[in-house]
């Protein structure tokens, strides 16, 4: 069922005693996520809504056994250490929700994850949601909203924009296109599981029939998805929208991480690469649900 998270995923929340950590842990549980424990340095022994809190991730592992995923809610300057802690404890997937994490910290996290053979998502991600199974992060905001907005089905969604992950899921569901998993890969330029990685997992997932991409100007993720399509590594149909047509060169739009540098990562280049590889690329976001519906029904 789905990718990255399902109803059996054993989940830890780092920073569970903070404002965001506490609120989002509640969302995750209410949606059905199997939240086992939390971690906040110096707060071991407390509980948050009945969830036991430990001083270190290693201690939580000693008590409960290994975790499949950890969702990290700590301020940006502390994300590196929290992520390295999760990786060192062997957690399979670390979700870095924090915004404004220094990029050299992210590269250090990436190095540690590579050598440990584990994955991370983000930073600057809204997270992952498998419809009716579980959520890592804050997609949907409230459990009842997430249930109302996202209907089950076979469309996988990968997005570079957090807000547009929810929007895409909502408008697809409203158009009768049900969803397997929604993934916000994170808004930064260097991230743990970029779109090509997520698309590869959707390809391997028997419950996903087709894939929707919400892309943006800047970087090379969309072009790399096009390479996967062109090489035959991905055979499931893909429909994409690329935002940022009106953006001017050289301007970075907040935490979207979208930047055009010297002709690389342009709107036209991404659209052309995806179309040449056989993907459907819609010109306006409003066309996306209907285009996706055609893929699933055909």
């Amino acid at each position: 069922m789905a990718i990255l998270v399902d109803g059996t995923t054993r989940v830890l929340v780092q920073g569970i005693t903070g404002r965001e950590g506490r609120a989002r842990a509640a969302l995750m549980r209410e949606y059905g996520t199997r939240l086992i424990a939390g971690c906040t340095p110096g707060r071991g022994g407390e509980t948050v809504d009945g969830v036991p809190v430990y001083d270190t991730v290693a201690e939580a592992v000693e008590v409960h056994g290994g975790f499949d995923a950890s969702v990290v809610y700590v301020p940006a300057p502390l994300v590196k250490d929290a992520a390295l802690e999760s990786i060192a404890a062997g957690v399979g997937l670390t979700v870095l929700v924090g915004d404004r994490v220094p990029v050299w910290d992210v590269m250090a996290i990436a190095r540690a994850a590579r050598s440990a053979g584990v994955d991370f998502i983000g930073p600057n991600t809204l997270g992952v949601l498998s419809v009716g199974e579980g959520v890592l992060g804050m997609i949907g905001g409230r459990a009842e909203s997430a249930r109302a907005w996202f209907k089950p089905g076979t469309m996988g969604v990968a997005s570079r924009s957090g807000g547009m992950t929810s929007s895409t899921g909502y408008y697809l569901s409203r158009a009768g296109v049900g969803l397997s998993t929604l993934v916000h890969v994170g808004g930064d330029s260097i991230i743990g599981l970029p779109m090509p990685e997520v698309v590869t997992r959707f390809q391997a997932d028997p419950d996903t029939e087709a894939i929707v991409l919400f892309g943006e100007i800047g970087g090379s993720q969309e072009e790399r998805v096009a390479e996967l399509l062109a090489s035959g590594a991905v055979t499931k149909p893909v429909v994409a929208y690329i935002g940022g047509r009106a953006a001017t060169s050289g301007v970075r739009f907040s935490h979207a991480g979208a930047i055009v540098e010297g002709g690389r990562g342009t709107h036209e280049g991404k659209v052309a690469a995806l179309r040449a590889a056989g993907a459907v690329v819609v010109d306006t976001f409003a066309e996306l649900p209907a285009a996706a519906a055609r893929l699933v029904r055909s």
Partner: protein
Amino acid sequence: MARLPEFQGKRILAAAGIAVPRGEVARTPAEAQAAAERLGGAAVVKGQAWTTSRAGQGLIRFVATPEESAAAAAAILGLSVRSFPVTEVLVEERLAIATEHYAGIILDDRRGCPVALVSSRGGSGIEEIARAHPESVAELPFDVVEGLADHAARELWRRVGVRGQAQQRLAAAVVRLAEVARRVEARAAEVNPLVVTPEGRVVALDCRITVDDAAVFRHAELGIDVARELDHPPTRLERIAWEVERDDYRGTFYFLQMREQFARGDRVVAFHGAGGGGSMMAMDALQQQGFSVANFCDTSGNPPASKVYRAARILLSQPGVDAYFGSGSGVASQEQFHSARGLVKAFLEEPLAVPAVVRLGGNGEEKAIEILQGCAAELGVPVECYGKDTPVDTCTARLAELLAGFEPPPAQTRPPRPAPARPYAFRSPTGDITYDHAVCASCASKACVAACVPQILMLTDDGLPVLKVTVEEAARGRCTECLACEVDCHAHGDGGGRVDLPVAGLDDYRRSRGME
């Protein structure tokens, strides 16, 4: 200003052991003349501006005498780049050049690590070099912790055909450049050209370093006052906005000006987005209706109402905008009534005198729409609010319709609020909250107590709203600045509650633009 000026970058290179030309920064022709005298007469005068191909724009001039240096500086200091004036020149010694090369450290989103990039050719842009002479360019990813090894750097230069002593010296320079990039946490550190002199010295003639905005907080030594990647030096309003963001970690507030010079009737819109992706889509939709945006703005990541309020105040401090348009992704995870309250407070204080269309779809949107629509009658201008089932294109079309039939209301002035007769006051994390208990005593609704999102208010036996947490707890963050105690009190109660949220420097700025 996360891009470092050339002269600052060169100081960092020099401290790291990479040779740079002798030189001085000058801000007047007289300073440029004195600098050239100290350099021995002949010099090169370089305008400090964030642009490529400076020579072609007249920003780099070679001079033979101190007098020519003064004249060159006078010419360059009169120039503008993208409408922003050049305020500094770098006066440097002229060096004889044997060969020109390129060295850069960039970050590779594909591999998630830093990459050293070199070329045996230099001078023109590296992308043009790579297109025209791909054999002259080599790159090598390196370990973020270990850094760039000396042998790897030598191999890089060998691959592009550089041999002998130059190979070793250029390798040493690129290894040091990698250390600089890691130490200042650069997104990019480039030297172009990196030259070899006839005597065999390796010297960096130019330097472009861009520091990661997110890392600026731990690099006080760089003196970066606005950690934003702009294509121009920060404007006054951008500095004001940056201080709001710097001092408040809750959520994200991003503001940049796209244009400063425009007037009523130019169809320029104050744009308030939420989330990068949704904002870009909204700007695309505005463009399709023939609007342009005065600014880019993003309040997202679950910001408090107070931050949205400050953002709106800053947006409305751009004289000449024809309308206010807000839209994010349309299906926000955050509770949208926070944004609605922030906007209402700003609109009423201004008071808003142009049409506004705001799309606040997502959690709590019904309440958000009710709060925002409620202020329209009082303002006498159209304020429309939509939720997730109204596409952004419909909202921009609606804005165009509203503007077409719009008659500006007679100028209103904000009546000064009377001083409270019986003040009850406490601090919030970034402001002051004051109740006039003389007003509250007769208020029938007591709307504030029910509407307070963190539920920190209670009524005394006399029916007066007071804190049920300590003032210290309120100031430390139990008060989340949801603004219900002012906005809901204004709408449903007798108006006894008010929240003062200062924006440092904004009043001065508005006076300077003729707005107060």
